[in-house]
C-alpha cells in the first residue's frame, strides 16, 4: 500500500514539474477585412501570449497603436476614428484552453479548443476558436484564426465607408512559444 502511495506521489510530482507556463512576447496578430470594394489588412508583431499548461489559462494582450497598415491614413483612421486607441489603448483575451492531451515534451500536432472573453474598445465579448499547437524539436508554434464583428465591440463605422469594411473580420494569431522560467 505504501508503495502505491509513494508511486502515486512521484507521478504527481513529476507531472507538476513538467507542467509549466509558455509565453511569447512577439506574437503576430493580423486582421483582414475583405469587401468587394477593398481589402484591408493590418499586422502587429508585438503582442504577448501566456499559457498555463496546468490550469489551461490563456492570456493574450496587444496594444492597438502597434497595428501597422499599408497606408498611413488607414492607420490614422483606425486609431483615431474607429478603435479610439487614446481612450482604449489595449485589447486582450482571457480564457482557457484544453491542454490535457498536449505533450509539450514530444513532437506532434494538436488541436486545442480555446474559449474566453475578448476585450477591445471598452467592450467584452465571448470568443472561441480552435488553436493548433505544432511541437517539433522543442519548438512550439501556436496558431489560430477566428472572426469578429466590429459592431460587437461598439466600433462605429460611418455610412460613407460601410461598404469598405467587412462585418466579419478575420483575426489570425501566430506565435512561437517558449517555456517561462
Amino acid at each position, binding site marked *: 500500500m505504501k508503495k502505491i502511495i509513494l508511486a502515486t506521489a512521484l507521478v504527481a510530482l513529476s507531472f507538476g514539474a513538467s507542467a509549466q507556463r509558455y509565453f511569447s512576447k512577439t506574437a503576430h496578430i493580423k486582421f483582414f477585412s475583405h469587401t468587394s470594394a477593398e481589402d484591408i489588412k493590418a499586422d502587429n508583431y*508585438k503582442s504577448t501570449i501566456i499559457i498555463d499548461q496546468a490550469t489551461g489559462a490563456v492570456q493574450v*494582450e496587444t496594444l492597438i497603436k502597434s497595428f501597422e497598415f499599408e497606408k*498611413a491614413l488607414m*492607420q490614422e483612421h483606425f486609431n483615431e476614428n474607429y478603435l479610439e486607441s487614446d481612450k482604449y489603448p489595449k485589447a486582450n483575451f482571457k480564457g482557457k484552453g484544453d491542454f490535457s492531451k498536449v505533450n509539450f515534451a514530444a513532437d506532434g500536432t494538436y488541436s486545442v479548443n480555446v474559449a474566453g472573453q475578448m476585450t477591445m474598445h471598452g467592450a467584452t465579448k465571448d470568443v472561441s476558436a480552435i488553436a493548433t499547437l505544432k511541437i517539433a524539436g522543442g519548438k512550439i508554434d501556436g496558431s489560430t484564426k477566428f472572426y469578429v464583428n466590429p459592431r460587437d465591440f461598439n466600433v462605429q463605422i460611418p455610412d460613407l465607408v460601410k461598404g469598405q469594411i467587412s462585418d466579419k473580420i478575420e483575426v489570425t494569431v501566430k506565435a512561437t512559444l517558449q517555456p517561462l522560467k
Partner: protein
Amino acid sequence: MNKKVIIIVLLSIIAIGGGVAYYLWNKPKTNAADVKPNYILPADSLGAAFAKNEDAANGKFVKDSVALEIQGVVDTAFVNEGNESVIRLKTSTPDYPVNCYFNSTDKATANKGDLVVIKGFCTGYLMMDGVQMSKCARIK
C-alpha cells in the same frame, strides 16, 4: 465669360481636391525624427511611471500621440519578425524596460551598454514586455 470663369474655378477645385486626396491617401509613414518632443525624460522615469500607475501614464504619455525623447542604456537590439528594428533600454524597474520600435523602413543598430537618445511615440505598456515606443528615431 462668366461661364468660362465658373468652369475654370470648378476644374481648379476638382484638381486641387483630387491632388489633396491623392497626397493624403499616399502620404508616407513618418518617424519621430523631425517632431519636437513634448517630454524629455530618462527611460528609467518612463518605466517607473507605468509601474506606478498605468492609467495615469497612458493619459500623460500615450494620449494625443505626444512625442517623447528618451535617454537610456541599451539592454539589447534586434530585428523582430515584422522586420522592425528594436532597441530595448534598461530601467531600474525589471519588468518595465522601454522597447523602442523603428519603422520597417528605418534600420537601427546599437550595442549592449550604449548610452542612446531616442525619439518616438509611446503606445503603452504590454504585459511581460514593458513600455512600448513606436516610429522611433535614434538621435544619439
